């Protein structure tokens, strides 16, 4: 059982890292500010979610699991609040590149 959980953790964290790499590649490759925000938020959210899921399998208490998911929820909340504001500012400033 421990082995299975460990394998799940390794797989989920590696998959999470892959999405962080994808988000960074998008940040470098995408042509405009708003597209880069897509890359930074959506790919990284999924990456963080997978890492949280993988680490939750190693948590020693329900409180630990709760704390991990709270981290994910807080990141989602703050980027849902800041993403549209940044996109609006980028449009007003005419920052295309």
């Amino acid at each position, binding site marked *: 059982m421990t082995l299975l959980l460990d394998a799940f953790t390794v797989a989920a964290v590696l998959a999470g890292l892959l999405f962080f790499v994808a988000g960074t590649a998008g940040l470098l490759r995408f042509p405009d500010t708003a597209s880069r925000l897509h890359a930074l938020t959506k790919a990284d959210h999924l990456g963080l979610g997978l890492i949280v899921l993988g680490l939750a399998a190693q948590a020693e208490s329900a409180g630990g699991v709760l704390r991990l998911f709270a981290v994910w929820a807080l990141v989602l909340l703050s980027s849902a609040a800041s*993403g549209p504001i940044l996109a609006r500012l980028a449009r007003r400033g005419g920052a295309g590149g």
Partner: protein
Amino acid sequence: MAAAAALRFAMLLLFWLAIAGTAALPVGLIAAALGTAASLQLMPPARLRPRPAALALLVLRFPWQALRAGLAVARIALDPRAAPRPGTIEWTPRLPPGTARDAFLAYASLLPGTLPAGGLAGGAVLIHALEAEGAVAEAMTAEEARFARAFGLDG
């Protein structure tokens, strides 16, 4: 007002206890009180009638949406032959201007392919889409209807 304040204080304190435990309870009490004051200032109590089934559907659907959103970005970012075809479309929300609409637009920024980018004078909202050729406006309207159903904003 008092009921809303008590509910918000309780929720914030519960959240504090979940992430910090009981070790620093005085700090948590102060933080929850400050958070309650700030939230009442920024978001006055509104009459929400959440529908449990629709809300549960919205919450349960979210991980699937996050997966779709992340996969879509990752595919375009990592495939050297793919390039995003971004564009900005105008979309008119059904929700009236205000907290509910802002909350939906914040939520929509987490959904696959859409990023609200500010409102226009006529009431329309600009939506930046990573793939502007798809049915972006239709998807936004469908999501808005789900969101409004979950929080009882459509009745």
